[in-house]
C-alpha cells in the first residue's frame, strides 16, 4: 500500500457520530481541503474529548463505535481527517457513504467487533496503532494487543491505487 497507516490514536467512545459533528455545515463553503484543518470534530460533544487538544491534533488514528460517519455525504468529513494527519478510522461499523469516501481517498476504514473495540478502549487513552498488512498492533497502558481485520479486495485496490479517481481514471 502506498500510504503508511497507524500512529497515535484518539478514542471517541460513542455510537452514531455524524458528519455534522466531524465538520459542521458552515465550513462547507471552503473550496480547499486545507482550509478545513482547524475545524475537525468541532461540534462533537463527548466527555473528556477536546478537539483543540494537542492529542487530537497529533492523532493518526481514530478508534470509535458503531455507525461512524452517518448523515451527510460530505467528503469534507474525510478531508478534515486527512489534512490533520488521520489516516485510518477503526470502528464497529460505518455509514456507507463515509466508509466509501475513506477508501476513495486512499484511507483505511477498518471494522472490528464490538468486543475488540471494548478491549482497545480498556487499554486507556494513550494508544498507539501499528499496521502491517491486515494486522493491527495496539499499544497502551504498558500492554499490547493484536488484531486482524478483513479488507475487501476492491477496497484494498483503491487504497493501493491512492484512491478511486486514480483507480477509475486508469481503468475506465
Amino acid at each position, binding site marked *: 500500500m502506498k500510504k503508511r497507516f497507524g500512529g497515535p490514536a484518539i478514542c471517541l467512545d460513542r455510537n452514531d457520530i455524524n458528519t455534522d459533528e466531524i465538520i459542521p455545515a458552515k465550513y462547507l463553503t471552503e473550496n480547499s481541503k486545507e482550509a478545513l484543518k482547524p475545524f475537525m470534530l468541532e461540534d462533537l460533544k463527548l466527555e473528556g474529548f477536546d478537539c483543540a487538544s494537542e492529542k487530537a491534533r497529533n492523532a493518526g488514528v481514530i478508534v470509535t463505535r458503531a455507525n461512524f460517519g452517518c448523515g451527510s455525504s460530505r467528503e469534507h468529513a474525510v478531508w478534515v481527517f486527512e489534512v490533520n494527519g488521520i489516516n485510518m478510522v477503526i470502528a464497529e461499523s460505518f455509514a456507507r457513504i463515509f466508509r466509501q469516501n475513506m477508501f476513495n481517498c486512499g484511507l483505511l476504514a477498518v471494522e472490528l467487533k464490538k468486543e475488540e473495540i471494548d478491549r482497545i478502549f480498556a487499554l486507556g487513552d494513550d494508544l498507539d496503532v501499528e499496521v502491517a498488512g491486515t494486522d493491527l498492533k495496539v499499544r497502551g497502558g504498558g500492554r499490547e494487543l493484536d488484531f486482524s481485520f478483513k479488507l475487501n479486495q476492491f477496497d484494498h485496490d483503491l487504497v493501493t491505487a491512492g484512491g478511486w479517481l486514480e483507480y477509475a481514471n486508469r*481503468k*475506465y
Partner: protein
Amino acid sequence: MGKTIAQKIFEAHIRDTPTPANVVLDLDVVMCHEITTPIAINDLVERGLDRVFDPNKIKVVIDHVTPSKDSKTATQAKILRDWARRQNIRDFFDVGSNGVCHALFPEKGFVRPGYTVIMGDSHTCTHGAFGAFAAGVGTTDLEVGILKGVCSFRLPETLRINLTGTLPDGVYAKDVILRIIKELTVHGATDKIMEFRGPVVDAMSMESRMTLCNMAIEAGGTCGICLPDRVTAEYLWPFIGSDYATIDEAVADFARWHSDPDADYRGEFNLDVSALVPQVTYGYKPDEVKDVTEMEGTPVDQIYMGSCTNGRIEDLREAVRVLKGRKLADGVRGILSPATPKVYNEALTEGIIQHFLAAGFCVTNPTCGACLGMSNGVLAEGEVCASTTNRNFNGRMGKGGMVHLMSPLTAAAAAVKGYITDPRPLLD
C-alpha cells in the same frame, strides 16, 4: 430465485465487476450542487482532466445557499456556473430558476424508472421514488461520475418495508417514515436498499413517495425505492409522452423493473399505518421519535416549512388546512421556503402563499437555506425549531439549536399554538 428491482437495475448497468462483491455501474444521471461539486471541479482542472462524460446526463443546480450570501458562497456558485457553461451542460439552474435539488430535478423529469443516479448529497435517495437506484455519494465518487459516468457499489441487499392499512386523516408519509426510522434505528438499513411496498405506497402520490424515500438515508439506507406504476407514469407523462403511445403502455413497460414475487430480501419490516398518529423527533438523532401527544406543549421559537423532504405543493396544501384564517402564535416566527419555483407559482395561484403571509410567515425564495443552517433562518444557541426537514443533528440548523422533525401539518399546528401539539383537532 427472483430478483429485486434494485438487482434488476444493477444488472442492466454493470460496467465492471472488480470482485464478486463489488460492481461498477454505468450512470444515467449525475446531479451536482454548489456545496460538494466545486472541489471536484477544481481537482479535475488541477489534474488536467477538465472534461465530462456526457453533458446531457449531468444536471446542475445552485440550491444550498442562493442567492449567494457572502464571498465564499458566491465563489462556489461561480465555479459551478463557469463549469456548466464551459462543459455545455444545458440543464443548469441558477438564481430565478433554481430550487432544492431533490424537488427540482424530479419536476424536470430527469429521473426515470430503472435509472442509476448519483449526487454528492446524502438525500439523493429521494429519487428512488421513481423506481430508480439513486444514491448519495461523496465528492470523489461524484468526480469520477462526472469524468467517467460510473460509480462503484457493493452488491445491493434489500430490506422490504411493507406498509399496510390506511393512513388516518392528518397523518402523512412523513409520519410513516419517522416511525420506520424509529423502529429500524439510524443504522438499521446501513448498506441496504429500502424497498417501500404495500397498499399505502400504492395509494401515495409521487410527492409522498419522495418524502418516504428522502429519509431512507436517516436509517442508513443506500437508497429508498418504490415500484414504478401508473402514479409514476402520470407524473412523468409530460416527459415520456414521446416514448410511449399511451400511459398504459408506459405502465406496462415500467413493470419490467418490478421485484419478482420470489425475490430475495435481506429482511422485512411491517407497519400497519391505520393507528399511526403524527410523529415528532425529540433528540439529536432522527430515530429519536415520539408520538406527538408525548411531546405536547414543547415550546418552539421558529417554524420551518420547506426542504427536499416537505417543501412540495402537497405539503404546503396540508399546512394551509391548519394555517388558514389563523396567525402565528405570539413570539413565534415562521419561515416558508417553497422547494422550487414551480411549487412557489402553484402555491401563489392556489392562494396558499397568501395564507402563509396572512398568518405572519416570511416567504423566502426556493433554497435549502435554513435546513442545513447556512442561511435564511439559522437558529441561535438555545432556540427550538419545529421543522419539516429531515435531520435533527446537534447544530444542524445552527450551533446550539434544537430541531424537532415533523410533518407540515404538525409544524403548522406548532406555528399557531407556539408549542408542539397534535394538529388533528385543528383540522376543519
